[in-house]
Structure formats: structure tokens, C-alpha cells
């Protein structure tokens, strides 16, 4: 085998705590006591409040397998996300879904369970797109493996991807195998002054062309773009599009919600609208340009507004999307953060939860009150 990169001695502590975690799950199942799975405690705001005994994954950590040539990394879920990313970067690789951290302690498990992706999402894919396999502690307290450590696998149902975004309500994820990709050879960020309507049109037009765009956001009267790929095409595209240079750390500030738009002292609620490509401006009473931040080429829109939840959800639904409330007005907890499911879909969610976690020991009520 040719390995041009040696696996570095990354400083990740390695520790297998799966047996202790399984024991906790067995006890919870025997006693019928709910567990509140805690990774890094960084994404607590995203989802409903869970009443349960805290179960920390932090002791279960370390990369279990990483061969850069295979483009696959397997990692325990208590591993800090930043440690995983550092180990990949040391080999010229990355998690293409660019997951947000929201704090130094974010864990791999939290990334998987919340399924949140960063600015590169529309071009590269989401967290679930890069998941190849998982190990899960089921309600019986046994660690089971689904998917695998290979690129393609269709043996059995895809329970690994089902775990992504399920917020830990279907089982305790102990390990995940993900596809990784080389870091782009070149990267340039640009800032183009243009009104919103024109920016949305341009993004649709460029979307139909093979351009090396990997991030596009509109705010403060300007389109912010990131170009990534081979040095030749990035340089040629930057020249063609013009505009001014943008500091590349803009993208991290956007992803981590550190831009002024997201300011915590703004008492209005914070909404995330997920919309189809080429959705025009959505008219909402009292909402003006500065109240909306357009990420993902307009597919992910952040909204600051105290409008009634129903009005916002209906507007998103009319455009073919949905809306999530991340922060309530005045920073209050949100009772129903996620868009309610239509009845048939809700029924099969309940069925699935009832089959995989009949006693409701895994993060009950985190996603929806009914399960």
C-alpha cells in the first residue's frame, strides 16, 4: 500500500468508555428512567428541553481509524470536534460539511445528532451525506454497528444516516465513520455590492454553470462569495466576477453565528428558514432587508422577527420549505422549535420511536413533545 502521508501522532486522548455507557443505558432501560445525552453542551439551545439524567459522552473519545488514502475517518462521538478537524487538517483533509461548533467543547456526537452543516452545504453536502457508518448503543444496552468503514454499503437499512439530526432520540451514538475530502487547493473570498434581488438572480444563473463557488451569503447590501478549487479556476473566476477581497474568517464568523446579525442582546426571536433554490424574497409584515441574512445561496435564511410562529411557518411552507425557531423572543425557551409534522408522517415517527425506544429513555421530547 502506498501511504504518502503518515498518520500523525495527533494529541487526541483515546479512551473507550462504551461498556460504561452501555451499562448506564441498560440501567435506564431496566428502571425506565430517561437519559439526557450530553456531548459538549454547546447546542442545548437547538431543540426542546429534555428532562432526564445527564449521560455524558465525553469520556468516550479518540480516533479509532484514519487512513487518509481511504478518505475515511472513524471516531468516537465524545471526541471534541476541533480535535477531529485538526487531525484531518494535518493530513490536508477536512469534513466537507463544515459543521458549526458553537463553542470549544462541541463533540462529534453533537454534530451527528443535530445534523447542522455550515456554509459549504449546498455545494458539498450535509453531515448526513458524509456519514458512512455508526455504532449505536440501543435500548438493550448493546453496541451495534450499522453501515461501515467503506464508501458504499447498502446491506440492511441505512440506520446510520437516520441517526443524523434525530437529536439522540433513537439511541446513543458511540462512533461514526465519515467520508472526508482533500482541502481545496486554492480559496478566495469576495465581496460584491449588489441589491438582494439581483444577488438572488445571479446565484441562480451561476448555479447552472460549473463555477467553483463553495459559499454564498447576502447581507449588508452585498453578496459574499467563496471560491474554492484548483488555483487556475479560482483565479480565473475571481477575475471574471470582480468585487473586493473579503477576509476568509468571515465564513467562520457566519457559521458560528458571531456576526452582529446574531447578537444575543437583540431581543427578537431567531428563526432559520430552509427553502428551495431560487426562492425569491419572502414578504413578511414588518420584516425588512436587514432582518434577514441569506446563507446557502438563499436556501438557508436567518430571520430576526417577533412575528407569530404560525405566520413564519406558513410563509416558509408556501415557498416549499420549513422554519425552525432557535431562540425565542427575549431569549426564552421555545416550546415547539421544529415545524410540526403532517399527521401521517407524525404517525410513522411515533411508530419508529416506539420500536427503537419504547420506554422513551433516549432524550425524550427533545425533537417533538410526542416522542
Amino acid at each position, binding site marked *: *500500500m*502506498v*501511504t*504518502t502521508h503518515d498518520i500523525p501522532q495527533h494529541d487526541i486522548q483515546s479512551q473507550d468508555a462504551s461498556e460504561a455507557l452501555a451499562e448506564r443505558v441498560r440501567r435506564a432501560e431496566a428502571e425506565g428512567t430517561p437519559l439526557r445525552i450530553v456531548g459538549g453542551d454547546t447546542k442545548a439551545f437547538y431543540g426542546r428541553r429534555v428532562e432526564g439524567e445527564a449521560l455524558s459522552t465525553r469520556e468516550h473519545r479518540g480516533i479509532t481509524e484514519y487512513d487518509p488514502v*481511504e478518505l475515511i475517518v472513524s471516531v468516537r462521538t465524545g471526541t471534541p470536534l476541533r480535535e477531529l478537524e485538526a487531525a484531518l487538517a494535518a493530513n*490536508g483533509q477536512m469534513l466537507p460539511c463544515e459543521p458549526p461548533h458553537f463553542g470549544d467543547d462541541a463533540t462529534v456526537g453533537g454534530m451527528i445528532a443535530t*445534523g447542522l452543516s455550515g456554509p459549504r*452545504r449546498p455545494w458539498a*453536502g*450535509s453531515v*448526513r*451525506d458524509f456519514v458512512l457508518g455508526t455504532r449505536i448503543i*440501543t435500548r*438493550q444496552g*448493546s453496541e*451495534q*454497528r450499522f453501515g*461501515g468503514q*467503506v*464508501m*458504499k*454499503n*447498502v*446491506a*440492511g*437499512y*441505512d*440506520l446510520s*444516516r*437516520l441517526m443524523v*439530526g*434525530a437529536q439522540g432520540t433513537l439511541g446513543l451514538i458511540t462512533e461514526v465513520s465519515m467520508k472526508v*475530502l*482533500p482541502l481545496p*487547493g486554492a480559496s478566495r473570498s469576495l465581496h460584491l455590492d449588489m441589491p438582494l434581488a439581483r444577488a438572488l438572480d445571479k446565484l*441562480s444563473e451561476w*448555479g*447552472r*454553470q*460549473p463555477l*467553483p463557488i463553495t459559499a454564498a451569503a447576502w447581507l449588508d447590501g452585498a453578496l459574499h462569495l467563496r471560491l474554492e*478549487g*484548483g488555483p*487556475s*479556476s479560482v483565479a*480565473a473566476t475571481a477575475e471574471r466576477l470582480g468585487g473586493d477581497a473579503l477576509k476568509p474568517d468571515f465564513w467562520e464568523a457566519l457559521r458560528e453565528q458571531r456576526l452582529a446579525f446574531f447578537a444575543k442582546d437583540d431581543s427578537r426571536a431567531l428563526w432559520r428558514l*430552509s427553502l*428551495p*433554490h*431560487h426562492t425569491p424574497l419572502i414578504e413578511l409584515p414588518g420584516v425588512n432587508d436587514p432582518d434577514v441574512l441569506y446563507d*446557502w445561496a438563499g436556501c438557508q435564511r436567518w430571520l430576526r422577527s417577533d412575528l407569530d410562529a404560525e405566520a413564519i411557518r406558513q410563509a416558509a411552507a408556501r415557498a416549499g*420549505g*420549513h422554519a425552525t425557531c432557535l431562540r425565542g423572543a427575549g431569549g426564552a425557551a421555545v416550546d415547539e422549535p421544529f*415545524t410540526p*409534522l403532517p399527521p401521517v408522517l407524525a404517525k*410513522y*415517527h411515533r*411508530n419508529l420511536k416506539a*420500536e*427503537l425506544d419504547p420506554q422513551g429513555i433516549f432524550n425524550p421530547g427533545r425533537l417533538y413533545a410526542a416522542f
Partner: protein
Amino acid sequence: MNTHFDERLDGGQPGRDQSEVLADLQQALPGMTLLHREEDLRPFECDGLSAYRALPMLVALPETLEQVETLLKRCRALGVPVVTRGAGTGLSGGAMPLSHGVLLVLSRFNRILEIDPEARTARVQPGVRNLAISEAASPYGLYYAPDPSSQIACSIGGNVAENAGGVHCLKYGLTVHNVIKVEVLTIEGEHMTLGSDALDAPGFDLLALFTGSEGMLGVVTEITVKLLPKPETAKVLMASFDDIEKAGNAVGAIIAAGIIPGGLEMMDNLAIRAAEDFIGAGYPVEAEAILLCELDGVEADVDDDCQTVRRVLEKAGATDIQQARDEAERALFWAGRKNAFPAVGRMSPDYYCMDGTIPRRELARVLKGIGDLGEAYGLRVANVFHAGDGNMHPLILFDANQPGEFERAEELGGRILELCVEVGGTITGEHGVGREKIHQMCVQFSPGELTTFRAAKRAFDPDELLNPGKNIPTPARCSEFRLTKSAGDAPAPTRAPESQG
């Protein structure tokens, strides 16, 4: 072991007789084509895995969603199992009928409902052929990325049910990465939308769960796929090697150089000869292995990457490197690869296609293992390989008219898959478990894991009426398999008479 549905092993169902079900369905669905005479049923007795056959009790060819809905409701009321079929090109017996079940054929749902060039999506019915989507999108400069070699025939519904891949998967993903929304009908006849027109949807990712679920959870009735802009340019390099291991290592070296090719395929000598004989693609017939490496994207980057890959290939010991001079030659290089299965089929009365996936670093070891096993079983094996993904397609050559030869091929296939699992791989990368690999599931997964799979199935189909006996084995089947295996383990395989060819 017997491949036919066995109530004792696969779960019991109330055996209704044909005339009763026929009368019921004819009354409920007077306008729907319902085949019941043996000569009409015969063409549906198998999918692409023709060694596995069973005559369905009835074949339904609905044309409207209302018909599908009513059919499912009636079958559920009667307790009659339903097997969904797309184009029937599946290679694992997933659409193999049940003699006590209805075969629901979706080939008449063949309309492209909408191409939206602005949103870059296509909304299609499940019976639409994979290639037809790219053809319809082409005027807008767009295409649908997953391109199974069967793309002229297979249906998009079947692609969703199998999570089909193609030669461009390493860079552009599998079906699961390119479908954004599906409409499904449950066994109770309820309509449900999974995914959305946006980039995500609230709730569990049931779209991912249904993709690759082999018709076991519901019937997919409409699909919205993502379309991509056609790359500005695509160039193919063909490298010859005098040693298969060197070719395998070259694959890793390309990726280690930070390049993700649009396609990266490998063929061994037997496959090269077969393809060359059939297509005349200009393949070097004396090479032990060839690598086809396609680089696509923006012109300037592709030129840079071609240079890099050339250097990597030279260093890896390629004996010859050719770059397709124009579009016609590029198409020809790919035609050889895409027709590799039928090409190998011409060399032998029958062939049996395997689909294991392995970590790429194990390639040399697994190829050697396959060679040794082939020799032990007295059967030739040609290797076609989605090298970038580690997805192997060993093609076992045999003659079904020679008594015992199919059984030997099947057993050899099973051994090859077990070898894939041994090195950390899987029994199926893209063709699915179906009926064919039901026993190997007992090798790849623990009893606890199989229990979890069955729990997921129960959430959607508690009475096990959708495609029973496929994909997930019952505990009874696994015990029986283990018994048979330990009883007859490692039989010294009888050597076949020298295969003709």
C-alpha cells in the same frame, strides 16, 4: 440452500388462492391491467438475477396513483404480500416475485413531470429510466449524476430502492446524495412526503432510511432529484499495468495527491479482453490491469490535474498512459467499461455478478483471495472494479447447463462476499441484498443488529406484507444457514472440467 420463499424460514402468510384474490382485485380495480394467466406471468418471473425465479400469483400494472393506493389497501386487507418492481434490472433478486404474492409493476409511471432549471431539480414518476432524466435536463446544461451501467434501462424508483451508484459516485455521490424528495405510499395506502424541495426537512431523515430499503418500507411513487451543471470539460486517462497490485496502489496514490477524479475504474485482464472483444474500445489486451481515470470540472483545473495524475501513474509503474484525444474516444473508453458485464457474458454461457465493497488498501489481498477461490472452485472470475469507491464486481463465469455448476458459482460468490466482510468490507455496495445475499446478512450482522433492522421494518409494515423474505433475514433463516454451514463447512469443491471459452 433453497432460494425460494420458505414459510418455515421466512415467515408465514395466509395462503390465499389466486382466483379469490383475482376476483377481489378485479372488483375493486376494474380499470387496472391485472395479469393472471401463466403465459402472461412468465416474463415477470425474475429480475436481472435470472437464476432466481418464481412465478407471481398475479401481476398488477397500474396507471394511476389511486389504483396503487387501492391495490395496497386490498392486499393488506387480504393479507397478500406485495413485491414492487421497476424495470427489473436488479441483480440481487429484490424484485423476484412471490408465488403467493402480487407483483406491483410501476413501468407505466414513466412521465417526467417537471424540469425546473432555476431550482435545478427534476420531478419524475418512479418508472422513468435513469438516463431519460439526464436527456430531458440536457437542453438546460444540466444532468442527473448517478449513472449505473444499467442506466438505459433501470428505473429511478428502482435506483432509490437500491441506492444505486455509478462510475461517477466517488465525486458526485450515490442516489441518496442526489434525491431530495420522494412521495411514498405506505402499505396502508397512506400518502407521505419524505424530504423536501429545500435542502433539509423537519423530523427524522426518513428519506435516507427509505433510500436503499429495497421496497420493504413503502412504494415510492414520485421522486425529485437534484440536477448538476454539466462540467465544462472531462478528460479520461487510461493507464496500463503489468501487475494488478501496482494498479491498485496507483488508485491510492491519486487520492493521496489530493485529487478526487470524476470516475476511477479498474478492470483485470479477463475483463479487458472481454470488453475489447465486444466493443473494440482500444484497450490493451495484454495488460494485467487498466485504470480509467476521468477528471472533470473547469478546463484550467482539469489540465493541471491531468498533469498531476500522469506523474502519479508513471511513478506507480504504469507501462502505458493514453489520454482520450476527443469526446468520441472518451465515450469509447467508457463504453468498454459500461458494457463490461454483457461483454463478459459473451465469453461464457452464464455469469454471476458479485458486489462486495472493501477498504481499498485490501484490494491486492482480496484479488488474490478471489483468484485462489476461483481456482479451488474451478471457475473463472473476471474483475471489474469501481476502484475509487472500493466497490468490486467479480464476475463468476459458469454454465448453468452443466449440472452443479450454478450451485458452485453461487457458493464461490458467497465465499467471496465473506472474504469482503473479513477485511472490513460489506457484502453489497450498490446491488442490494434482495433474495440473493440474504444468508450473507447473517454473516455481516449480529443477531442484535438484525433485531434492530426488523424493528425499523415493523414501524412501517408490521404485517410484513412488503417484499417479505428479502433484505433482512429472519432468525429462523440465520439459524438454518448456520446449521447448514457448519454441517457442510469447507467442502473440498469438486474441480470443474476445464471451462470452455
